[in-house]
C-alpha cells in the first residue's frame, strides 16, 4: 500500500482474529492491524468519545468486519460507518460465517465493499485470507476525511 493504511479488524473470536492476522501477514502485508473483540470497543475507536468520527480525520482505514458480535450486530456498525461523513469512504470488508443471501444483499445495500464467507475448511480459509491480503496490498485507500 502506498499510504500507511491501518487495518481495523472487528472480530469477536480471538482465534479467528489470530488466524486472519497470520494469513494476512503471510501474503506480505505489513500494515498495522488493530483488532477489537467487541462492537463497543470498535465503535469507540472509530468514532471517538464524542461519536462524531472526527478522531479518524486524515487516517486511511480499511475495515474488516464480522457480523456476529456479542454486543451488537456488524450490520449496525457497517450502517453507521457508511453514514459518517469521515468514515464513509473507507472500504469495509465483511468477513463472516453467515452465508444467508438476505444478509449478503443487505450488507451490499448498506455500502459494504466486499463480502466474504469464512470457509470452514482451513485450507480454503487460509487461501481466502491470503488472497484478501494480496488484494489489500494493491488496493488504494483514501484518507478518512476530505
Amino acid at each position, binding site marked *: 500500500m502506498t499510504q500507511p493504511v491501518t487495518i481495523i479488524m472487528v472480530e469477536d473470536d480471538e482465534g479467528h482474529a489470530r488466524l486472519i492476522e497470520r494469513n494476512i501477514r503471510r501474503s506480505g502485508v505489513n500494515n498495522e492491524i488493530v483488532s477489537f473483540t467487541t462492537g463497543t470497543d470498535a465503535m469507540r475507536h472509530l468514532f471517538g468519545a464524542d461519536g462524531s468520527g472526527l478522531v479518524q480525520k486524515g487516517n486511511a482505514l480499511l475495515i474488516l468486519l464480522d457480523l*456476529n458480535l456479542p454486543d451488537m450486530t456488524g450490520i449496525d456498525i457497517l450502517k453507521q460507518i457508511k453514514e459518517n461523513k469521515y468514515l464513509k469512504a473507507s472500504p469495509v470488508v465483511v468477513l463472516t*460465517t453467515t452465508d444467508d443471501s438476505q444478509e449478503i444483499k443487505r450488507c451490499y445495500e448498506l455500502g459494504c465493499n466486499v463480502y466474504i464467507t469464512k470457509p470452514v475448511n482451513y485450507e480454503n480459509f487460509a487461501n481466502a485470507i491470503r488472497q484478501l491480503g494480496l488484494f489489500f496490498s494493491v488496493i488504494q485507500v483514501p484518507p478518512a476525511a476530505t
Partner: protein
Amino acid sequence: MTAEGQRRRAFWQILLFAAGLLVLTVISAGSVYLVNKAREDSKWVVHTIEAENQINALLLEIRRAESTARGYLLTQRSDFKADHDKAIAAIVPALDRLTRLIGDNPQQRKSIEKLSSVIETRLGQFAQEMDFIRQGQPEKAAGLVRELASADTTAAIAEVATGMLQEEERLFRLRTANSDRSQTLAASMTGIGSGLVVVLALISIWLVRRSTRERDAAEARLRDANLNLEAVVDERTADLREANDEIQRFAYIVSHDLRSPLVNIMGFTSELEELGGDIFRRIGSLAHAPADGAPLAPAAPGEIALEGADKQLHEDFSEALGFIKSSIAKMDRLISAILNLTREGRREFQPVKVDTRELIEAIVTTLAHQAAEAQAEIHVEPLPDLVSDRLALEQIFSNLIDNAIKYLKPGVPGEIRIRGRTKLGYAIFEVSDNGRGIDPKDHQRIFDLFRRAGTQDKPGQGIGLAHVRALVRRLGGTMSVSSELNTGSTFTITLPIAWNVSNRNRDR
C-alpha cells in the same frame, strides 16, 4: 345425548303406540260384542212381548168361543154358530203358535202342556154342547153349561194362562234390564276407550315435544362443541407451528455458532501440523549433524528423515492430528447438513402442476451413471400427476432412487421400479428395489437424523431419509417402508394430489 336415552325413548314411543292400538282393538271388539248382545237382548224382549200377545190372543179366542156358544144356545141363530166355529178353528193354530214361541222355556212348556190338555177338554165340552143343540136338546146343553161352570174348566184355563203371563212378565223385566245393561256397557266402553286414546295421544305429543326439545338442545351443544373444537385445533396448530419455527431457528443458530469454534480448531490444527513438520525436520537435521557440530544443509521441505524413537514420535503425532482432522471434517459435515435441513425447512413451498413421470425420468437420467455402475435397471411405470412443490418432489425421489441404487446387493443385477396410483384424493408412489433390504427393527431408525442401518460400507451422513420424510410431511403426506433383509425394500409415499399453501402454511 346417550344411546341409552335414545333407546329408552324409542321403547316408550313404541310402547305407547302399541298401547293405543291395543285400546282401539279392545274398544272395537267390545263394541261389536256389546252391540250384538244388545240386539240379542232386544230380540228376546220382543220375543217375550210376542209370547204375551199370543197368550192373550188364545184366551180371547177361547172367550169368544164360549160367548158365541152361549149366544147360540140362547138364540139358536146360525150366525152365532158360524162365529163359534170360526173361534174354535182359531184356537188350535193359536195354541200351536204359542207352543212354538215359548218352546225355549221349559217351565212355560210344562204350563203349555197343562193348558193344551185343559183347552182340549174345553173344546170337547164345546163339541158336546153343539151336538146337544143340533139334536134339539137345548135343556141338556144348558145343563151341561151349568155343570161345566161348576167344574170350572174356564177358570183353570185362566189360571194357567195368568201364570204363563206372569212368567212372561218376569222374563220381560229381566230381559229389558239385560238389554239396558248391555247398552250402558257399550256406551261406557266406548267412552272410556276414547278417553284412553286421547290420554295416550297426549302422552305421545308430550314425548315428541320433549324429544324435539332435547334434540334441539343437543344440536346446539354439538354446534358449540364444533366451534370450540375448531378453535382448539387452530390454537394447537398455531402452537405447534410456533414450536416448529422455534426449533428451526434454534437449529440454525446452534449450527451457526458451532461453526465458529470449529474454524478455530481446524485452523490451529493445521497450524500445529505445519509447526510439527518444522519441529520434526529440525529434530531430523540435528540428529544427522556430524560430531564436529558443523550444521548440514537443512533437509528439503516435505521429506523428514528420522530414525528410531524420533520416527515413532512423528508417527504418533501425525496419527493424533489425523484423528483430530477427520473428526473435525465429520463434525463440519454434520453441521452443514443441519444447516441445509433448516434452510430447507424455511423455504416456502410453491404448488405447481408437476408431470411426475417426466420429473422422475429426469432424475433417472442424472443417476444413469451410478445405475450403470451398479448394473441396475430403473423402470418408471405410468405415474399420476400432482400439484405440489417441484423442488421438494425432486429431492424426495432423487434421495429414494439414489438410496435404491446405493444399497443394492453386490453382484446381483439391480432392478428398481417406480409405481404410482391414486386413491381418494391422494397419489401413492412406491419405489421398490431388489437390494439388500432393511431389518424390520431398523424401520423406524432409518428415518431419524444421522442414523443409518445395516453394513456401513457406503458414504453417507444418515440425512437423506430424515430429509425426505420432513419434506413429505410438509407436503401434507405420509411415508412408510416395508422391507426384509436380503429381499429388497419398498418405500411408499402418499401425497395429496392437489397440495396448496393454505392447508399447511396458513398462519405463516
